[in-house]
């Protein structure tokens, strides 16, 4: 038995050696691996990351080779999938969900020569970078549009899970809306899922039934927007441009655009200039895009474009004071801007949200 074991270990070592040798060969293209939490066919989060992968292929051609594993469960399965990519000679690995954080770090420790990029996390290492996008910038813009377009003064928000990312989005949306109409109301429904078209549709219907004439969402499917179209109200696309699903209802969509970042980071590995960084880019870094403004009067469009331009240039920050918390406490003083640390871990609502956060 022990002999067999020894033999197995020896073979494994030999093969592993052969593989690393292969990876070191300069003529080989750089293998870039991706781990997705959902199916590429979700047309949301994982889909947009895959668009980024395709952009790398398009931009760098035969200098790179990309591989991916989709529908990887957050947990032990993720560590195995990442390990597998590492063992199969990937030189750069993108792990595209928060739930892969510890697993990414664990694998990175075992493979110090491989570069890792973890999306939306906060733990880094010498060979692990983190990156995320300031989607809240887009949410501020759509909040302004919502307040201009709404007759009832109530928007409905279909939300997934109460994590800082989503809470931040809700706050930014309402701050944008309040900048136009200080009495604007927001109703929130949590569906406890990123991805359940049926439940998302139900939530949208319930919100419309309670008087919301603007539907916005922080879940992945196109269902809420489709309901808006059906019931004659308007709304916003999420993650990708959803105009095909709601030609009359989509005002604009916040588009996740990972391609610029992915191409830059891949180039950095090819040039040997890659270092561990923490990137939190917004409209200025082209990570957050707005699709065409449609179905709205010209003055609203002009306002939206102006806000977008100001955010892009850095002239305006959505979380600029004064900002009051739900209970009336002053959170950011006039003239100050909420710092990134607080923003990253945001777990309180701004004044005017009609919902309670679990603490």
């Amino acid at each position, binding site marked *: 038995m022990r002999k067999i074991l020894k033999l197995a270990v020896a073979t494994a070592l030999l093969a592993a050696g052969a593989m690393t040798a292969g990876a070191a060969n300069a003529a080989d293209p750089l293998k870039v691996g991706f781990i997705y939490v959902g199916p590429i066919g979700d047309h949301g989060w994982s889909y947009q990351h895959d668009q980024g992968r395709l952009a790398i292929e398009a931009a760098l051609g035969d200098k790179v080779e990309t591989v991916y594993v989709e529908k990887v469960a957050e947990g032990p399965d993720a560590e195995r999938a990442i390990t*597998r990519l590492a063992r199969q000679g990937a030189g750069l690995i993108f792990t595209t969900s928060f739930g892969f954080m510890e697993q990414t770090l664990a694998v990175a420790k075992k493979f110090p020569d491989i570069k890792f990029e973890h999306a939306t996390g906060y733990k880094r290492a010498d060979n692990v970078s983190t990156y995320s996008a300031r989607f809240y910038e887009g949410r501020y813009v759509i909040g302004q549009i919502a307040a201009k377009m709404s007759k009832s003064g109530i928007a409905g928000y279909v939300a997934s899970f109460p994590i800082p990312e989503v809470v931040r989005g809700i706050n930014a949306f309402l701050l944008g809306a309040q900048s136009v109409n200080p009495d604007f109301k927001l109703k929130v429904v949590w569906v406890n899922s990123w991805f359940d078209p049926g439940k998302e549709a139900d939530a949208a219907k319930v919100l419309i039934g309670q008087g919301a004439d603007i539907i916005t969402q922080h879940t992945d499917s196109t269902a809420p927007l489709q309901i808006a179209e059906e019931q004659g109200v308007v709304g916003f696309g999420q993650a990708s441009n959803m105009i095909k699903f709601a030609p009359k209802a989509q005002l604009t969509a916040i588009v996740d655009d990972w391609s610029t970042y992915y191409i830059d980071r891949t180039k950095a590995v090819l040039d040997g200039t890659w270092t561990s960084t923490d990137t939190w880019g917004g409209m200025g870094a082209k990570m957050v895009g707005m699709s065409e403004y449609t179905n709205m009067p010209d003055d609203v469009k002009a306002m939206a474009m102006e806000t977008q331009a100001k955010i892009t240039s850095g002239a305006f920050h959505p979380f600029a004071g004064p900002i009051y918390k739900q209970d009336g406490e002053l959170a950011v003083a006039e003239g100050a801007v909420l710092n990134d640390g607080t923003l990253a871990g945001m777990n309180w609502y701004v004044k005017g949200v009609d919902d309670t956060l679990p603490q």
Partner: protein
Amino acid sequence: MRLVLERRAERSRLMGWLSPVVAVALTLATGAVIFSLMGLDPARALYVYFLEPVLWWWSLEELVVKAAPLVMIGVGLAVCFRANVWNIGAEGQLTMGALFGSALPILWHEFQSFPVMVLMLLMGALGGALYAAIPAFLRTRFGTNEILTSLMLVYVAQLIADWFIRGPWRDPQGFNFPKSVQFEGWQLLPTLGDGRMHLGAGLALVAVVVLYVVMSRTLKGFEVRVVGTAPRAGTFAGFSSKRMVWFCLLLSGGLAGLAGICEVAGPSGHLQPAISPGYGFTAIIVAFLGRLNPVGVLVAGVMLGISYLGGEAAQIDLGISDKTAQVFQGILLFFILACDTLILYRIRLLRPQTA
């Protein structure tokens, strides 16, 4: 021409061994055809799919990690199903086990000496068993069907866990992300070397051995079989069907709970909302593929593990999609199930007789 089954006088021992071989051969043949139709080299594809997971030390380790919870839950369910107790809520019991077991390391993080591990494992098993006690109580007290109660409670358990992990139990230093503190010291199960294979695998093996002995050598095992196959005879023999429901649900719930805490304290190392990728449901298939026999469950668990790992390897190596892998897995299961028929029956083709 018509296909009919003819019952054998007794279980065919030969077929018992042969049927899995035939099933694998059929799957290989089908796989070869599918892969060549997709324009892949069938030999390489099959190698990646079936052999690679067992040829490397690290992937063997991964196989064990993947199979351990399936086996641990599967053996418990096998006993349940033998006794005609339909616990299909093992996924919920697993979640509760994970939650109970994690209470100590989360609430008392400084407690990192050896006893904490023992307590965590016990609490995990207790959590699963307590959660399975709900359907047991409702069944024995009110006659409520356990298929519905155990299944519905899965969703409830996941929501409870979700609330804890996003609420009071999240890591205070974790920027309010849904994740508990990282376990440390003996809060983590010991692993073999610095690999990924952890104590959970050993516990799964113990469960297999113990239940094998119980089922084949003890009165309790006899009781389970009698109550399952001939409930009336069981009543005459003085076996209480209520006690049997309790026994089966507590046992399978406890094992599922144990599997849950082993996942969290083993390969995970912390609690996060996605605790299991559906192990509790997959274990139902494992139990039946293993013919409700503890040793069979062990084999079936490993086999299913291979098909998962192979599917993943195929995604990376061959560039086939996750769906193809899943379809392939479905086909494999069908072949195994169909071939098992040969153990009990002979297949005959009948030509239509002219009367």
